[in-house]
């Protein structure tokens, strides 16, 4: 499978080299070729130009997709464990090891991440945590 994938990208690269070498005309043909590879539905091709994603956003999404797990905690479940997680971090322990699903969720959910960081600042600043 890995071999096939590598071959696929190799073919893709060869095709791209070809596209670059005969720039203007072949680009359109090669795009069609690539579309066939990705098995695009004609209807979706029509709409695709409307969906504009920047390289940075694509990277963000790919990272999120790549890190997706079958089982994930909800925001409320994480909120219920955030106090414990923050205290462990402030004690210099490794909360990611003991609460890996919380750690994972904080990587995936910007809202919960912001709340965790704000809680840590609050605990550190208020000196209520010892």
């Amino acid at each position, binding site marked *: 499978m890995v071999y096939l994938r590598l071959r696929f990208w190799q073919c893709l690269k060869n095709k791209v080299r070809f596209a670059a070498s005969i720039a203007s005309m072949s680009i359109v043909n090669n795009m069609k070729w690539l579309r066939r590879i990705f098995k695009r539905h004609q209807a979706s091709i029509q709409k695709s130009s409307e969906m504009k994603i920047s390289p940075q956003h694509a990277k*963000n999404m790919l990272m999120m997709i790549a890190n*997706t797990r079958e089982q994930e905690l909800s925001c409320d479940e994480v909120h219920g464990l955030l106090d414990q997680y923050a205290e462990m971090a402030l004690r210099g322990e490794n909360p990611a090891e003991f609460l890996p699903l919380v750690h994972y969720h904080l990587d995936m*959910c910007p809202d919960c991440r912001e709340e965790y960081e*704000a809680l840590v600042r*609050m605990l550190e600043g208020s000196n209520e945590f010892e």
Partner: protein
Amino acid sequence: MRRTNDEWLVDLQASGRRKEFALEDLRRIITHGLPYALSKWILPSDPRFSSLVEEVSQETILRVLSKLDTFEGRSQFTTWVQAIAVRIALTELRLARWREISLDEHLEKDDLDGMDRELPSSDPGVEKSFEKNEILNMLGQTMESVLTEKQRKAMLAVAVKGMPLEVVARRMGTNRNALYKLLHDARLKLKGHLEKNGLSPSEILAMFEE
């Protein structure tokens, strides 16, 4: 006055002066800590700051009192309270920040920052540019064909437009938990689709970062 977790619980469930003292101490802890928590959001010099802190303190205390029986003692009681205060405060700030912005209008706006679509040229980086454009197209089209309209809207709003889940959830008439689940399902679908077509998201990502 420092209290143990049990003392907090007993005092807050007491009556009269004992409860009043405990509530006052709790309010003080919240108002003292909020400037640190919110330092990246709003400064104490902002005219809205003191009313926000007051509002958050009151709301936190009400919520804490109504949820006392759910405190499981896995942390200090005050840490549990502060986590509640942080969530209330950031929710308020997020909603205020995005109050005037419609979800649909925001999604319709072109967001091309950093997107300069590179067309193939004689430049040595032409292959990379071409591949990147193809990946961008492929990703956009996969989202179009695999996700439901609701999932696509949520993914675009959160992952592409960077809108807070809390805000998107309210605009879509749902809550944050349900929205996270919707996004999780969408990510699983996209991952499954890519893998089914022999494409590993990690490999595409690596190629994208070359």
